């Protein structure tokens, strides 16, 4: 959604009369599998892992029932799953998979290779904590592990967004200016197993929207043999990596275009950020995923108390929308970044590092930046690790800290004193 259109925050009431949409009750996993059925990829290679298992389990049912043309490869590990996806994509197929947590960690080596080889594989990733201790519930540690792998990362707030994001991810990944793999994430159990009303798009409309896949160097084109994955030393490796960076830059515009076109066709517009009550906000919280909805409830509560509160959901995490973060948050008095993962670096968690750099760096395309003293004070909270609930009251407490920070500005030090990040909801 455009940063200028905060009204679009609630996606529930936007089914236009023209489009033949029907609302059904589905879980996040069910709609991700449904999107895969409609996309009808050539190959899916996957290994089950909680809480993403259902995505490919349901999809395997579609394969068994003959509802898709997909070759479903049951592999022996996630490393093999991504390896098979890479081979199938390089062969010339449209390829998808799904995983979570330890599965993503095990496939990490191949995740980087998929991006370096520029293969537009689309993956459903259900966010779950990483061991140890072992845990099956939501946090964002798993996708942060491959934050810098060269994959597009789109976070979903609810099942509707998970469904819509899956369909858009195919177009984004396969765009000729991009050609990068993309992962669409949902919060484990909160979205993956939570049942909601979802508007589904007719099969034909999905297929028309995504179009057909045109591989660039298909290995099955035996008349034009090529070498893939050759070694590059000091001579060409750097140039090859620079190309990946450029593709991620190009994705910035493509994601906006695809989100707008999706909105024109199906009534739900998508952009980088979802800004809620930000028009006159003085303080705001920033979050990824399902917590954005909780944050909006907290914003409403704070507004009733007369506090000029707002919230920003970051939908697209990679590429990171630094310019829009700056435009949306740069003039505020204080900003709290809520991170559902910890970088364990005695400094700041991942989303906070990105937001802070966007707001304070003058080297990232900022035109005429305001002096640092006029930019917002930033508080960083790590919350919800291993699926620990976050409630509106927790975020209201954050707004209380923000109010103090806004009033005292640089003098403000939250309790416990001078700690960054702060831990929200942990037992002391």
């Amino acid at each position, binding site marked *: 959604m455009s940063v200028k259109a905060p009204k679009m925050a609630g996606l529930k009431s936007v089914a236009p009369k023209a489009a033949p949409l029907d609302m059904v009750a589905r879980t996040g996993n069910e709609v991700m599998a449904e999107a895969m059925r409609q996309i009808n990829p050539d190959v899916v290679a996957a290994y089950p892992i909680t809480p993403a298992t259902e995505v490919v389990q349901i999809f395997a049912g579609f394969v068994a029932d003959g509802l898709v043309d997909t070759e479903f490869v049951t592999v022996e590990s996630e490393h093999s799953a991504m390896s098979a996806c890479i081979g199938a994509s390089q062969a010339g197929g449209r390829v998808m998979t799904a995983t979570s947590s330890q599965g993503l960690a095990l496939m990490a080596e191949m995740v980087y290779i998929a991006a370096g080889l520029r293969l537009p594989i689309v993956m459903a990733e259900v966010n779950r904590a990483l061991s140890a201790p072992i845990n099956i519930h939501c946090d964002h540690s798993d996708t942060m592990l491959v934050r810098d792998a060269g994959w597009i990362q789109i976070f979903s707030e609810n099942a509707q967004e998970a469904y819509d994001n899956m369909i858009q991810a195919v177009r984004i990944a396969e765009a000729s200016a991009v*050609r990068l793999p993309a992962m669409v994430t949902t919060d484990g159990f909160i979205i993956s197993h939570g049942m909601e009303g979802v508007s589904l798009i007719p099969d034909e409309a999905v297929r028309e929207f995504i179009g057909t896949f045109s591989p660039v*160097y298909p290995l099955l084109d035996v008349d034009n043999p*090529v*070498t*893939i994955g050759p070694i*590059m030393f000091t*001579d060409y490796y*750097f140039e090859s990596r620079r190309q990946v960076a*450029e593709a991620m830059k*190009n994705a910035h515009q493509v994601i906006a275009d695809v989100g707008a076109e999706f909105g024109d066709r199906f009534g739900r517009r998508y952009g980088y950020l979802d800004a809620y009550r930000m028009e006159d906000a003085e303080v705001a919280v920033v979050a990824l995923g399902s917590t954005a909805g909780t944050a909006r409830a907290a914003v409403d509560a704070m507004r009733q108390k007369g506090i000029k509160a707002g919230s920003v959901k970051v939908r697209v995490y990679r590429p990171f929308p630094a310019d829009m973060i700056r435009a949306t948050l740069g003039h505020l008095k204080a900003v709290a970044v809520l991170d559902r993962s910890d970088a364990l670096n005695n400094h700041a968690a991942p989303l906070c590092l990105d937001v802070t750099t966007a707001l304070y760096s003058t080297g990232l395309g900022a035109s005429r930046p305001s002096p640092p003293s006029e930019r917002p004070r930033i508080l960083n909270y790590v919350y919800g690790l291993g699926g620990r609930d976050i409630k509106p009251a927790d975020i209201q407490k954050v707004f209380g800290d923000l109010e103090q920070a806004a009033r005292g500005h640089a003098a403000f030090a939250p309790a416990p004193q001078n700690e960054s990040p702060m831990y929200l909801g942990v037992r002391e």
Partner: protein
Amino acid sequence: MSDATQGASEKEGRLEPRHGWRDMPLGGVIPKAGSATEYETGDWRSIRPLHSKERCINCLLCWVYCPDAAIRLQDGKVEGIDYEHCKGCGICAKECPQKVHAIEMVPEGRIKEMEAGDRDVR
């Protein structure tokens, strides 16, 4: 915004050191078949196989096992070694029958000494 899927080097048919990142094919692909001969891997070598025609019985085990197709044959006999592509792995010397011992692995540093002076390898 450019199409990321084609680089200038593809139109020219060859990637050269002067080419920048915009010119390179997508994803590091080599879009031309049979191009391995153009990649001279001989300069990776630190030990050099020296082949003795006198000792060689032309069993061709070295030719079979060489991973870089660097054993040169003529009329079914070992003619010599392609030093532009031989990486010096030593597999040929290892596979050469012990009693024949027609291939000796010699450090490149010693080769330089030999070329400069007078010393016989054996």
